C-alpha cells in the first residue's frame, strides 16, 4: 500500500503542463532551471499538501465515525468542515492571510461545531441516534454556511472575495513551502496520536453501557481523540479550503476492503486517502490549462462512490 502511494506521488511529480504538456521528460529537468524550480517550489509542496490533506481528512472521518458509531459521520456531514471554513474565512476577512490566525480561528470554530453537534443531538430526540446526529450536523453546517455567506457579502469584492470563493471550493494551487511548513508538525503529531490509538478507538464505537463497563466510557478519552480529529480537519482546511467527501468515502471504502478494526483500517485510510487526494489534485491542475478546484473533483467522485457503496449494501446503517 505504501508502495502504491509512492508510485502515485512519483508519477504526479512529473505530470503537469510545463515544461511540456502532460509529462515532464527527466532529461529536460537537468537542462532547464525553471523546470527544476517548478518541481521543487511548486509541485513538491503541493503534492505534500495533498498527501497530508488526504490522510488527515480520511483519518478524522474515521474517528468521527467510530466515536459517534455512525458509518456516515464525517467532517462535512457533522458541520466541522464548514465551521473550520467559517473560522478561516473570518480570519481572512479580518486580518488577511496570516497563517497563525487562520489556523487558530479554524480550530476554535471546529471545536465549537462538534460541541454544538453533541448538544443538538441530545435535544433532537428521534428514536434513531444516527438520525439525531445527522440532523444536528445539518443544522450546524447550515449555521456556518450562512456565516460564510455573510462573510462573502462583507468581503472586499476585488481582493478578498475571489480568494475566499476559490478557497471555499477547496484548492491547493496557492500552496507554498512558507504556508505549508508551519502546519506540518501539528498534522504529523495528530496522525501519530490517531495511529497510536488504532486499537482502543474500536471500543469507542460499542454500546454506551458496554464501553462504560470496559472502562472505555471515560468522556476524557473520547473528547481527546475527537479533539485530535478536529485539529487535523482544521489544520488542513485552513490551507486547502473546503475539500469534502474524503472523510466519508475513504474510511467506508477501506472498511469494506480491509476490515473495520482500526489496526487494519487506519494505515490503509492514510495511504489510500493520500493517494486518492494526490490523484484528484493532479487531475485538477493538468486536465485543462486553467485550474479546476480540487473540491469539485473529490465531490463528484465521492458522490458517485457513495451511491455505489450504499447501493451495493457495503455501507449498512443499522439501528
Amino acid at each position, binding site marked *: 500500500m505504501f508502495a502504491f502511494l509512492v508510485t502515485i506521488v512519483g508519477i504526479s511529480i512529473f505530470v503537469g503542463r510545463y515544461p511540456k504538456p502532460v509529462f515532464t521528460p527527466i532529461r529536460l529537468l537537468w537542462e532547464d532551471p525553471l523546470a527544476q524550480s517548478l518541481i521543487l517550489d511548486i509541485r513538491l509542496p503541493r503534492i505534500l499538501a495533498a498527501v497530508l490533506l488526504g490522510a488527515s481528512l480520511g483519518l478524522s472521518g474515521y474517528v468521527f*465515525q*467510530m466515536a459517534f*458509531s*455512525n*458509518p456516515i459521520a464525517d467532517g462535512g456531514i457533522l458541520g466541522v468542515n464548514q465551521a473550520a471554513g467559517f473560522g478561516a474565512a473570518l480570519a481572512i476577512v479580518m486580518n488577511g492571510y496570516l497563517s497563525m490566525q487562520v489556523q487558530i480561528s479554524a480550530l476554535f470554530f471546529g471545536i465549537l461545531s462538534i460541541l454544538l453537534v453533541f448538544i443538538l443531538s441530545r435535544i433532537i430526540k428521534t428514536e434513531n441516534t444516527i438520525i439525531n446526529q445527522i440532523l444536528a450536523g445539518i443544522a450546524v453546517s447550515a449555521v456556518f454556511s450562512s456565516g460564510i455567506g455573510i462573510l462573502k457579502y462583507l468581503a472586499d469584492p476585488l481582493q478578498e472575495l475571489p480568494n475566499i470563493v476559490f478557497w471555499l471550493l477547496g484548492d491547493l494551487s496557492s500552496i507554498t513551502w512558507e504556508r505549508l511548513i508551519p502546519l506540518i508538525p501539528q498534522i504529523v503529531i495528530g496522525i501519530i496520536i490517531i495511529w*497510536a*490509538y*488504532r*486499537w*482502543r478507538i*474500536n*471500543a469507542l*464505537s*460499542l*454500546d454506551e*453501557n*458496554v464501553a*462504560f*463497563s*470496559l*472502562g*472505555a*466510557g471515560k468522556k476524557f478519552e473520547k473528547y481527546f481523540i475527537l479533539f485530535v480529529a478536529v485539529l487535523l480537519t482544521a489544520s488542513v482546511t485552513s490551507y486547502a479550503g473546503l475539500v469534502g467527501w474524503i472523510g466519508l468515502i475513504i474510511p467506508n471504502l477501506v*472498511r*469494506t476492503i480491509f*476490515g*473495520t*478494526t482500526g*489496526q487494519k483500517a487506519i494505515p490503509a485510510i492514510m495511504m489510500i486517502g493520500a493517494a486518492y487526494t494526490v490523484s484528484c489534485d493532479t487531475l485538477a491542475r493538468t486536465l485543462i490549462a486553467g485550474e479546476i478546484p480540487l473540491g469539485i473533483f473529490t465531490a463528484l467522485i465521492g458522490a458517485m462512490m457513495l451511491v455505489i457503496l450504499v447501493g451495493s449494501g457495503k455501507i*449498512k446503517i*443499522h*439501528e
Partner: protein
Amino acid sequence: MIQNIDIKKLHFRYRINESFVLNDISLEIQNDTIIAILGNNGSGKTTLLLTLLKRLIPTSGTIDFVNIDKKNENEIRIGYLPQIEKIPFGFTVEEYVLLGRFQQVNMFHIPSKNDLKITQEILKELEIEWMQYKKISDLSGGELQKVRIARIMAQEPDIFLLDEPANHLDLQNRRELLSIIQKKMKKNKKIVIFTTHDPNDALAIAKQVLLMNKGIVIQFGETKTIMQKDLLQKTFEIPIQIQKIEGKTVILTEN
C-alpha cells in the same frame, strides 16, 4: 477478589418528582454465587444492574464492594451484558471478543500475545472458535449471544451483570446458554447476577433469587426457599402454580 457487595438503603429515580424506580433496597451479596433477579417488566431489574455497574448514581443509599485484595474500587472489573446491544460496523467475532480486554491494554497500546491467547481460549471453551473470522452482522441470535458472553468472559470481571441473557433464544440455545453461565462463568468465586422474567431459568441455575416488584424487594434468599407460590404471585401479580413433573419443579401460570 470480591468478598461481598453491601447495598444499603438504595434509592434511585431518574428525575426529581418522579417515583422511585428502586425503592429502599438493602442486600448483602456474598461471593461465589449466581443470583437471578426475577420481576415483571418495569420492576427495576435493569436499573438495579446499572447502579451496580456504577453507570447510574444512586439518589440515596450506598453500594460497597468489599474485596479481599484491598483493590481500589476503580480496579474492580464489572462486566455488563445489555439486553439489546448495537454492534456497529463489520467487526469480526475475534475482533469483538478481543475488545473485552480493553482494561488490560494500556493507553496507546495494542493487545499483547497474552490477550490474544486468552481470547482464543475463551472462544474454544465456548466452542465458537470456528466462527472467529465471521462478521458479527452475519451471526444468528443464538450465536451472537454466545459471542457476547465470550466478550464479557474475556474481560475477566469480578462481577458479571447479565440483563436478560436468555431472552429471545430458542429452547436449545436457552439451555446451552444457561449451562454456560452456570459451568463456565461462575468460576473462582465470582458473582454472577442475571435478570429474567422466567422463574424456570432461575430454578435451573440460580443459587439465590431476588424477587422484585415495582422497585421494591419482595424477598431475597436461597432459590429453594424463595420459590413459593405466594411470593411469586406477589412478584408477578398473576396466579401461579408450582408442580413436580418427574421429580423436577416446574413453575406454571394459571390460565
